[in-house]
């Protein structure tokens, strides 16, 4: 779950980190009111994706009218596929310097990594490429958290010794986002040092592990419904499905990320273009398959569907029953190729055949078949 800036900042504030005064505005009028309260503000689009500045999603406002106009322009605009649901109006900071600070998971190290750089404010990826030594790194032990001497070393490595004390204290607070909120990324860029020496979070990115949301229901309740992205993805999420929208006309359902990706590869190789795909995961029940098919079909661009399931924990008979029920319930008329194998595959194929669905052979054969049928349907 990627939190929006204002949400991430609320969480940081709850960890004791200083944030600028700010107010959420869902309407231009609220943005104008924010100006009345806060004075000169930045009106910032709230989307869970980078680059909003370049996309025109951040505007400064020096009057209530400017704030109103900025919000009018920003709310509802599309930034990288996300419709901006609201803006965050934040008081301008008296910036002395800008620092980069971020935790994330380093999958190669199988550990959390903490990165600190005096070169904040710009894209950290660029800094990392151009002057990797200017980013100090620390892998805190996951049970112990960062130790005092480790933070001291980090701060000296980053050549930020002059603000060692407030910085170490802030890092320790930000670290709490990992054990306390299952953060996969907790980033403050820029971390602003004001001219009066205060250390304040200028921006905030926080991604919470979806697998751990059961430990953080309050976050889901508080923030889960705010974001408006791809409507199909929103719908899929409501149904607890892993779904991705693409550009083509063939819907794909598979189980396991590897097989889904492999099926995408096969369909493209066969000359088709996937419209979307849905990973029904391991242990998928009939109901899950039906849900997946329903979501796949919500997209009117879909002209044919390929279901590619190789069963381990997923049982063929359940998949088959799900496919049949889903097709019937959804009154689906589009071409449908089902390729199924693995646990209880005979039972599954039998069920499909009994209901007039012919199972495919290999993944490659099935991919060629759905591409063929879809093209035939499109030209028909």
């Amino acid at each position: 779950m990627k939190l929006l800036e204002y949400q991430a900042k609320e969480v940081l504030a709850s960890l004791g980190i200083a944030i600028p005064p700010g107010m959420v505005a869902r309407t231009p009028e609220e943005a104008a009111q924010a100006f009345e309260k806060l004075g000169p503000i930045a009106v910032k689009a709230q989307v869970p994706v980078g680059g909003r500045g370049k996309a025109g999603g951040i505007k400064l406002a020096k009057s209530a009218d400017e704030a109103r106009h900025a919000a009018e322009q920003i709310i509802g605009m599309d930034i990288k596929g996300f419709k901006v649901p609201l803006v965050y109006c934040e008081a301008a900071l008296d910036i002395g310097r800008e620092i980069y600070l971020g935790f994330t998971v380093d999958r190669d190290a199988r550990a959390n990594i903490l990165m600190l750089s005096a070169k904040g404010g710009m894209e950290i990826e660029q800094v990392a490429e151009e002057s990797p030594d200017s980013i100090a790194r620390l892998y805190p032990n996951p049970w112990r958290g960062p130790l005092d001497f480790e933070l001291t070393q980090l701060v000296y490595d980053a050549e930020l010794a002059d603000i060692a004390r407030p910085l170490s204290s802030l890092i320790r607070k930000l670290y709490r986002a990992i054990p306390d909120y299952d953060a996969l990324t907790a980033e403050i860029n820029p971390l602003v040092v004001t001219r009066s020496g205060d250390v304040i979070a200028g921006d905030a990115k926080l991604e919470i592990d979806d697998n751990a949301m059961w430990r953080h229901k309050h976050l889901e309740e508080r923030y889960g419904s705010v974001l408006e992205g791809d409507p199909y993805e929103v719908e899929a999420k409501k149904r607890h499905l892993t779904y991705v929208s693409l550009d083509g006309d063939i819907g794909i359902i598979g189980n396991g990320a590897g097989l889904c990706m492999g099926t995408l590869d096969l369909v493209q190789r066969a000359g088709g273009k996937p419209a979307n795909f849905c990973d029904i995961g391991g242990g998928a029940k009939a109901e899950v398959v039906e849900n997946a098919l329903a979501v796949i079909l919500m997209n009117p661009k879909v002209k044919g569907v390929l279901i590619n399931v190789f069963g381990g924990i997923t049982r063929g008979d359940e998949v088959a029953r799900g496919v049949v029920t889903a097709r019937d319930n959804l009154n689906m008329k589009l071409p449908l190729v089902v390729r199924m194998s693995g646990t209880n595959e005979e039972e599954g194929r039998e069920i499909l055949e009994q209901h007039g669905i012919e199972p495919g052979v290999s993944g490659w054969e099935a991919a060629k078949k759905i591409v063929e049928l879809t093209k035939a349907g499109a030209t028909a």
Partner: protein
Amino acid sequence: MSILLDRDTKVIVQGITGREGGFHTEQMQSLGTNVVGGTSPGKGGTTHLGVPVFNTVADAVQETGATATGIFVPAPFAADAIMEAAAAGITLIVCITEGIPIQDMIRVKDFLRGYPQARLIGANCPGLITPGQAKIGIIPQRITSSGHVGLVSRSGTLTYEVASALSAAGMGQSTIVGIGGDPVLGLTFRDVVELFEKDHDTTHLVLIGEIGGSDEEHAAELLAKGTRLKAVAFISGRTAPEGKRMGHAGAIISGNRGTAKSKEEAFHKAGVQVAETTDDIVGMLS
């Protein structure tokens, strides 16, 4: 004629009384796996599927001498189950459970440093099978056959595809290891390749990778140093859209590392053949 697991390995199942645990224990038993017991707190002293059930892994190890475990408990309890197994002296821990929080697994990985003899496979993996002898996990034995191909994969379902094709072509497998697709996992490609390298009944190697991370590259580096195995690699996700979430975090593309291209190039550089589709693997291996 195998790595990690054979017919003599004493195996327990954590979560044996659960629906999935029970179903797959029966499958494991039908292959001949030496399942000596299971655990289910509160059900110690009972019998399930013909084997004794214990409250804790420590009890199970003490009573049965088990050295391996398959974990089928729900995600919120899985990290603890792995640590429990390691602390009890289990040396092969296979965690099938998917959806374990990443921070849990990071803590588990650190915990396991205290138990260097404990090997973890997974989590979120199909487990491993030594065809004709034993399995821990959910790989359908019907599609496997005994032989000399070592198969290691990050993807469950693609593993089945390939095993199935190999068996159909008469190329049996020594051991099949599904290492799982999570970003923080136990044995890596490199670890498993090292084991196959040392297993003189394994003559061929199939490695099925996927975009994300650098584990395939690390295995390629090892193979580049020279291998006696005839090897083929396949990477799935080459047409996956960049930066899109692909179902497990293992498929998130980060920077310019972990792309299908970088992985395929690493294998090319190591002199390892790279298959374009899983259907090509059998032909390239012969």
